[in-house]
């Protein structure tokens, strides 16, 4: 009935390369805090001014310490949650559903948009596949794409920022 107990004796010390990559990711996505842990190891990284530990009472849900995750991909998309302090500066276009992000209609096609593309509310900017259905995602606002925040094939959660735009 019980799974046999496995021993976990990883002997590697901290992989500084992975830490550096993580720090770069954090900087890129403006993540202020990350906690990673598994049975043997625990990483806790905080950037910028210290956040008070008490959570203020909001009317809807939480002021969030970004989520931890241990599975690959090393940082769960939840870590870049669309919450005030963790949001990339500027206006973002966020995922309207959970699924897999595709930047182009097919591997052969060019991406729908690139940095610099001017979009209108009805411009198709990407597809999100969910339950074998490819949903065309519209920009819903107009402006110029200044940053693409996810990569082709990434899994994305509801509300996750996909693009940063300069409104206009």
């Amino acid at each position, binding site marked *: *009935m019980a*799974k046999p107990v496995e021993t976990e004796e990883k002997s590697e010390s901290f992989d500084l390369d992975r830490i550096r990559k993580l720090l770069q990711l954090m900087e890129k996505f403006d993540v202020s805090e990350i906690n990673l842990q598994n049975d043997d190891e625990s990483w806790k990284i905080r950037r910028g001014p210290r956040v008070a530990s008490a959570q203020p009472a909001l009317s*809807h*849900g939480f002021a969030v310490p970004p989520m931890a995750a241990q599975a690959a991909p090393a940082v*769960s998309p939840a870590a870049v949650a669309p919450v005030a302090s963790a949001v990339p500066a500027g206006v973002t276009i966020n995922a309207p559903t*959970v699924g897999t992000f595709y930047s182009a209609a097919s591997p052969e096609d060019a991406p729908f948009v690139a940095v610099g593309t001017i979009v209108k509310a009805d411009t198709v900017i990407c597809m999100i596949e969910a339950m074998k259905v490819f949903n065309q995602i519209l920009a819903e606002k107009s402006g110029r794409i200044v940053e693409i925040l996810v990569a082709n094939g990434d899994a994305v959660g*509801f509300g996750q920022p996909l693009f940063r735009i300069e409104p206009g």
Partner: protein
Amino acid sequence: MFQRILVANRGEIALRIIRACRELGIETVAVYSEADRGAHYLELADEAWCIGPAPASESYLLINRIISAAEIGNVQAVHPGYGFLAENAHFAEVCRSCNIEFIGPPVLAMQQLGDKVSARAIAMKAGVPCVPGSDGLVSDVNEAVKVADRIGYPVLIKATAGGGGKGMRVAGNEISLRAGLQAASAEAEKAFKNAGVYIEKYVERPRHVEVQILADNHGNVVHLFERDCSMQRRHQKLIEESPAPKLPEELRQRICECAVNLVRESGYTNAGTCEFIVDKDYNFYFIEVNARIQVEHPVTELVTGIDLIKQQILVAAGEKLPFTQADIRHTGCAIELRVNAEDPENNFRGSPGTITKLRLPGGPGVRFDSHVYEGYTISPYYDSMIGKLIVHKPTRDEAIQCMRRCLREFVIEGIATTLPLAKRMFSHANFVDFSIDTTFVERTF
């Protein structure tokens, strides 16, 4: 065995499932709405995906969102917990059509037992006593009046798709039957999109006794004894316990056997609960099957030593039950108290908000299943249960003393809770000597 399971729920039951999986060496994928972002239990999953905004209808109840998360999370199975999609046969069907196992019963059994009229037919076929009533749905008022004349007033009008007291009416005479029938049918149509109603003899002041069942896919069905859940308010259980006090041993055995027979007859597998009412003369009648794990499952876990969530997962993975009926022993007395963020002084109005101070009871025989902690904010979007305090002691008297001791220790500040009501209930002479029925709480507090 599954390597990875998606937990299609939130709060304490999500945490409970994550804990069971972790002990079985199974990875978990959690899903959450924007209102639950940042909750500690999500950090205990191996992966967590936001699936939508706070309202359950836009997140936890959206089948396609959950299946999408299951796909990107690469899971082999989904555990639905209780509430939300747990008894949604369509959800079970979609999961399985996507090659994701739904940790629960077969779709057919869910459909048949989910409909009260067909559940009643199965029970009668299995030789399980049912409340005297109409033979299936009543098609019109005149038929209803005929049935009521046969079984005698008062009668209960019930929606076949019903639950939680919706679409239910008591009629003491023909006039109120005629009026109630239309009202109940309209309410059922609105709540369940199914206007079908049927009629039963109204059993006055019954006790609520339910039997926990486990069945595997190899034809093995066992019961894990009964729970008494007569302490309820507006059809919401407040206190559950096992063994059921003052239930003659011979009757207890017969009820448990009936539950096994009914489950066998229906082809049901996985964990489930058969609910019965017991009247003052110790007649018992089948009411319905809850085709899922229940809030009060820890009561049974404590008296039997069997982890029901783990068994659900193992059964869904195709394993045989590791015990027979004869192996299952009942030890001591367990009592569960649901602690809700509701204000007993203000008609049990929900009281969402932040827990500013929390001092938990503990010590021997005390278990508190909860996802909350000091600083946690109770969201207004979901049900008000904060956690379940369960005690397990050799005797009922000791369990009550322990619960009263725990209630003295328990401090929750920042929100109103049902703890003050709990103190009154556990001190009330009628509860202590178990002179109660399902109307006791509403009549008394």
